[in-house]
Every structure is written in C-alpha cells, then in structure tokens.
C-alpha cells in the first residue's frame, strides 16, 4: 500500500526552481532512499512533505488522502516525523525529558510533570523497537548515535508512522551507521515507513528497498535497489559517467619541500598528541597520512602550518626553519592550507565570497593599495576562483553560508590552490562533499602535484589516501606506525596499522 505520494511537486524560490515536477512514491513499511547531490532539491522536497514549505504546484497525499500542510504541526498530526541532520535536543535534560518535551505527561491537575510516566513511555518504545537507550541519562552524556535514537523516539512518541531522516549517517561512526540500519530494519518490521535523504550511494544501496534519484530539482529515476548498481546510480545522480575509482599515475618527485623532524606536540593534560614524528614531503608528490580521526592528525597539521608551536622538533619549509614562525609567515612563504573544518577555519560564513577569497592574502600586494584593501582586485580574484573551480551559484556577492557544502569546499580549495603554493596541506578535502565535487577536487589535487607542488594529504577515507598518495604514513596515537607504498599495501594491513598493530606481529 502506498504510504506517501508526492506528485508533480514544483517549488520555486527567487531565482531558482528547487523542485521541478518531482514525483515520489513510498510504499508502507519500506525504507526509501532519496538520493542526490548537494543542491539537487532533496531537502526542499522533504520540507514540502513536512509542512515547512508550501509547494507552488503539485499534491501531497498521505495514505491515499490528499493533504495540505500549513506547518510541521499538521504534518506531525498526520503521522509524519522528521529527524533533522542537526539534532533538536536539549543537552542538559535527560533522554526521557527530551522525548516528551512539549507533550509532557502531567499529574496533580497539570501542576507536576509525571516523570515516572515519561520514563515508562520511553521504556515501552525502546522495548517495542529494540532500542538500547537509558531514559534517565543526560543527553550531553550519550553518544551521537544514541542522540539520533532519541530523535527517533521523539518522533515515535508523537505517533509518527512515517519517519524522514535528513542525512542520518553524516555524523555517525561506521559502527553507529550499522546500528542505525539495524534500527531502520526493526522500525519497518513494525510497519513504520522510512524516507532517508542521502548523497552516499553505498548507503542507499545497502539500507533502502527503493531509491528515488533527484538531479537539479527533477526526478531522474525511481527504482528498487535490487535492480540497480552503484555505477547506474552514480550516473543518474551526476548526469554523466563518473570515475568512482581514480587511478593516479605516479608522481615525479623533486627536492624536499617540507622536512618535519622529530615533532612532538603535548596537550594541556601533558599527553603527547604528536610523538616524535618525522617525514619529508618532496615537490611533485602527494604524501598521505592515514589514520582514525583523533590520532594526532589535527595537532600535526597545526604544528606544520604555524597554527601552534610544537613542544619539540623542527619544521623546515623550503630550506628555512619555520618552527617558531607566525602563521602569516607560513602563508607568505608559500604554504597553502585547506582546513578540516571549513566553517570554523576555512570561511567567514556571514561574509561574501569577495572577502572570503582574500582570507589569508589580505596583506598581499596584489590585493592592497597602501594599507587599504583593493576591493576591485579582490572581486576579480573571487570571480576567477568561482569560474575556474566551478563554484555555484556563480555570484561573488553571495555569502559563504548560502553555498552548499560541496561548493564551499570547492571555493576554499580554489582560493588555496590559486596562491601558487610550494606546499599544500589538505585535510579531509572531500568530507561531506557530493561525488561530482569530490571527483573535481581530486583531479585538481593531482594536477597541482603534476605541476611540481608538494602535497600533504590527511584523510580518514582509505580509498582516498591510497588512490591519491605516492607515499603513505599511518598515524596511531600520535606516532607514525609505518610508511607504506599505497599501491601495494592491502586494506587489511592498513586497518591493522590504523589500530596500532604491525601486520607481521600477527
């Protein structure tokens, strides 16, 4: 039986058509993936279904009845629940308090919240759907995976039959992703219907029964996952054939550009976050650093790029000891840096791209006249980056915040690469970036290398570091476990190194 049916949905915003005659049919008791690149219109469509947006054209039907939702309240009443990408939880309150927030069970004529009833209700839901959640735990104390489950419990407590999950795996560890998919299975077994938004092909194929693909606001395919392949879905999403596996030719390394010698970084608690790390990165090669996040990558990169002074060891860049030099000196010496967190460190979100384009070069002669910034040349520069790196929308006056994640990343990459650097330090260049942009960024990185630039690449994606790097170091608890040849190393061996074991010790 059809649970949700959206037909002919068109939603226009000033200047854009976010959804153009989109159709989506979801069967009751199934998991349905809504697949598309960032900016394809997935979230807009779900906001229409959830009553946040009113469609310009088209109809929404729930269980065969046509509905018009004015607000999320109406959608909730119709049994639709949404789990947002950024959780809507109060950290200081308990799980049970969060679940019942706004619909608290009361006693004493409404003058007292009935905590026991709330706890019992949450326990009941947990039993029914096989969740392992402690209702009395404070939300701040539980893991992100459990927090997501609390969001699901909130929707279930409000009587949701259809759950919409917006990019549910973006914040989860691989283990938590598996747990989530198990939970989705239990929910559908109980007759619930799931729609999840994603741009990750593998997840759609793995967890969903059916998949609808959106591209540029249009439905380009709706098919059962059993009848399709990664390649077919990728092509539907991007609109052309996509190289899912890049196979980089080996680089032609030249002189040593970056020489890291016995670097040690100690944190406030006296623990060595980076312990005695040495490495050399040569011109024209990609030096990769693999490892599970939090094993010292961030601290190592901060020490190299001049964001923090190491406690011991030396960093030599282009023959000059830069260990104690300022961040500004590093930039002017020709070290470009694509940071891990683009919102925190890569961009000023409320500023336009003109200003963002000269971040770090604000004192460069090219963008200044006297002590004042030459906004005309800054604008030309931003426009160049936008054109060359295919940043959309093509508008230098747009704020950084208005861009999708992939486009923000392309803009940062463009800005840094255009500095004409001798060394680029790149952290997680494709995290949270759609596959079209990922492919583009990887190609640019290799082009830069072929032009003779040294590249230091930190990534937690194994396929990314192995396919792009010429040499690869594995970091574990701040130490280099080993340096391996990415072309010959096996995934098992890498996995062991990342877990702190040498394969031969087995």
């Amino acid at each position, binding site marked *: 039986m059809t649970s949700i049916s959206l037909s002919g949905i068109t939603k226009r915003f000033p200047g854009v058509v976010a959804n153009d005659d989109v159709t989506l049919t979801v069967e009751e008791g199934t998991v349905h993936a809504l697949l598309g690149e960032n900016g394809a219109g997935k979230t807009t469509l779900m906001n229409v279904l959830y009553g*946040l947006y009113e469609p310009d054209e088209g109809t929404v039907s729930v269980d065969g009845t046509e509905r018009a939702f004015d*607000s*999320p*309240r109406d959608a*909730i009443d119709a049994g639709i629940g949404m789990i*947002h990408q950024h959780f*809507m*939880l*109060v*950290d*200081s*309150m308990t799980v049970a*308090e*969060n679940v019942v*927030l*706004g*619909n*608290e069970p*009361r006693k004493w004529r*409404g*003058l*007292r*919240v009935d905590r026991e009833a709330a706890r019992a209700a949450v326990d009941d839901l947990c039993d029914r759907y096989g969740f392992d959640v402690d209702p009395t735990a404070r939300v701040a104390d539980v893991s992100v995976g459990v927090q997501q489950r609390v969001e699901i419990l*909130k929707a279930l407590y409000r009587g949701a039959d259809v759950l919409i999950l917006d990019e549910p795996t973006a914040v989860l560890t691989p283990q938590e992703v598996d747990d989530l998919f198990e939970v989705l299975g239990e929910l559908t077994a109980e007759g619930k219907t799931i729609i999840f938004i994603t741009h990750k092909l593998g997840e759609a194929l793995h967890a969903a029964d059916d998949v609808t693909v959106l591209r540029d606001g249009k439905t380009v395919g709706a098919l059962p996952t059993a009848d399709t392949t990664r390649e077919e879905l990728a092509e539907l999403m991007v609109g052309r054939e996509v190289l899912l596996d890049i196979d980089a030719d080996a680089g032609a390394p030249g002189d040593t550009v970056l020489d890291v010698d016995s670097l040690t970084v100690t944190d406030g608690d006296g623990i060595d976050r980076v312990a005695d790390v040495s490495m050399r990165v040569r011109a024209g090669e990609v030096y990769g650093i693999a490892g599970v996040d939090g094993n010292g990558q961030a601290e190592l990169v901060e020490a190299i790029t001049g964001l923090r002074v190491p406690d011991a060891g030396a960093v030599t860049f282009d023959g000059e000891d830069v260990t104690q030099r300022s961040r500004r000196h590093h930039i002017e010496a020709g070290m470009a840096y694509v940071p891990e967190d683009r919102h925190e460190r890569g961009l000023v979100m409320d500023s336009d791209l003109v200003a963002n384009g000269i971040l770090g070069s604000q004192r460069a002669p090219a963008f200044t006249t006297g002590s004042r910034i030459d906004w005309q040349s800054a604008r030309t520069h931003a426009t160049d980056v936008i054109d060359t790196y295919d940043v959309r929308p093509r508008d230098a006056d747009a704020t950084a915040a208005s861009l999708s994640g992939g486009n923000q990343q392309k803009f940062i990459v463009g800005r840094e690469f255009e500095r004409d650097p001798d060394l680029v330090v790149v952290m997680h260049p494709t995290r949270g970036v759609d596959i079209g942009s990922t492919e583009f960024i990887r190609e640019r990185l290799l082009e830069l290398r072929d032009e003779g630039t040294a590249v230091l690449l930190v990534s937690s994606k194994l396929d990314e570091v192995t396919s792009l790097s010429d040499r690869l170091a594995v970091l574990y608890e701040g130490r280099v476990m080993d340096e391996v040849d990415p072309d010959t190393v096996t995934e098992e061996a890498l996995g062991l190194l990342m877990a702190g074991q040498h394969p031969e010790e087995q």
Partner: protein
Amino acid sequence: MRKPDRGTLMAALGGLAAVVVALGVVFPGSVAGELLGIASRPIMAEIALRLAVPITLAALGGIFAEKSGVINIGLEGLLIISSFTAVLVAWALGGTTSAALWTGFAGGVLASVLLAGLFAVVCIKYEADQIIAGLAVWLVALGLAPFASSVVFGGKNTTSINRFSEWTVPVLHDAFVNSGVGILSYVGHVLLRANPIVYLMFGAVAVSWYVLNHTAFGRWVEASGENPNALDTAGVNVHRVRYASVLVSGLLSGMGGAALSVGHVGSFVGNGTTMIDGKGFIAIATYLFGNYNPLGTFGAAMLFSGLESLQIGIQQFTPYEVPSQLIQVIPYVTVVVVLVLVGRTRIPEAAGEYYESGDDR
C-alpha cells in the same frame, strides 16, 4: 588553573567559619571571640534575612529570565522602579494603614512588571542586544525614580511612611522564646516573628524551585535557554515562554524592590545609587554562584547578606578602632573572591541570543 567546585568551596568557607567559632569559644576575649559574640546575637540573623530579601527575589527573577535565554541585567532597574512606585502609591493612599502599604506593594510590583514587559518586547520582538537593553532599564529607572520623587516630594528622597508590621506565628513563637533553651529561643526570635517580606522570600524560593524543576513550564524554560530549536520543533512557542519568563523576572524583582521600600525601610532613598545600591547586580552574582538553582541562590544571597549584617554589627558593637569604610567593603570583596574561585557556572547555551522561529520563513 583548575577551579574548585562549589562543594569544595562551601566546605572551605564552612571550615573557616568553624575555626573562627572554635577560637571564639576557647578564647572569649580574642578577636574571634568578639566576632562570635556579635554574630550570635539574634538581631544579626534578623538583619541578614531582611537584607537578603531584595537580593534573593531579584536573583530568582534573574534565574527565570536567563534560563529562558534572555539575560536580564536590568534587575537593578526593576528594583529601583518598584521600590519607588510602591512608596508613591502607598503615600498617595495615606501611607499609614496596612491596606495602603500592601496596595503600594502591589503597585510597585506592577511597575516592575511593566518595565520588564517593555524590556521583553525590545529584546524578543525587536531583537535588541540584551545587555544594552538591560543597561537601559537600569539607567532609565535610575534617572526616572529620583526625578519623579523630586517632582512629587520635592527631593530625591521621599517622605517617610509606615512600613510592614511584623508577623508572629501564634502560640509557637511564645513557646519557643520562653522555652529557656538557647537554640529554640534563637529560632523563635529569628524565624517565628519576622517581617512578612521574609516569609514572602521563603515562599518565593520554594515556589520558584518547584516551578523550574517539576512543572512543564519549568522544562520549557530550560529548553528555551539551552536549545530553542528543540522546543520550537516540539510545538511550543519559544517567544511565549521567553515573554512569560521575563515577566516573571519583573514580578519577582518588583516584589523585592517593594519589600525593601514599603516592607523594610518605609521610604524611598533616591540619592546617588538610590537605596537599591547595587543589590540587583549582587543578585546576578548570587544566581551565578547558585548555578541557577533557587536553593543555592538563596544560600549565596544569605552568605552575602550575612556578611553585610556582620559588617553592620562590627561597626556597632566592636571595641576595636577600624575604619568603617574598610569594614563595609568586606561583603563585596567576598563576592568577588567567591565568583573568581567558582568560575564554573555554565551559562545556558542560547542565553543572550534572540530566537527566530523557523515557521516564520
């Protein structure tokens, strides 16, 4: 530097007090003995309780506002406006009868609620900076009350009127005071016959604690200050919760200001920093020290007012020649030291930020 938590700090303060008490008992003639002699008089506790009233009530109001996400730094202004208005209304009604005084009290509360409401509209509807709007509340009240007093009474200080007469708990008071047992007699003097504003304060602490911890509204206040988005998506209007909380802060502060003027003093003093004299700001310090918990906040207010009362006692009773200016500064220095040492208070996540509802898009 690692900061000690509240428990450690309170234990340290308690330990220090215990040492002074022990020294005082062993060496009655020493400085410690003198201090103990002063502190153990019932009048000291009575003064401390009365002094704590405006601070505690304003602090309770501050808790509601700030927990809901609106930092109300204008508590001082609310105390000033209510203390003046209460005297004005009571005076207009004759200023002698109990009915006139209590009507004046209600008038003071109303003035404070109105000013708080204005502050709420400016902060919530017009998205003004809460700190600046709060300072404006203080400055407006600081200018308006003495000015109005000059117009009506011909001077910054109002005419003296009556003040609340003390309430006595029937039977029990006499039984305790005449019991002959020191501690019971002390309790009888301090707690069983007191100014009604003291009982009002006890009631307000208990009710605030209950509302914040055990009612749905209390949960909404917390959610509104920690993550207003969560509250909004749960179907509760964030703006309504914040308006209600700021009005409650006006109500409680109004009670505090009116309690001081018509309850305790019997006039309004408008010279300099007025009779409020920074009590609204001390209130902010006490609720931070009390970590937004009404009970802890009451304790912090008592710590301050206890020191203040001791300070008055030392000036009156001590045989030593110590400059009074130096002694007067003791409570304030203590507050600064305590706040520096605490430093652990976690301000609500969304406090100070205005909230724009997603539904309006």
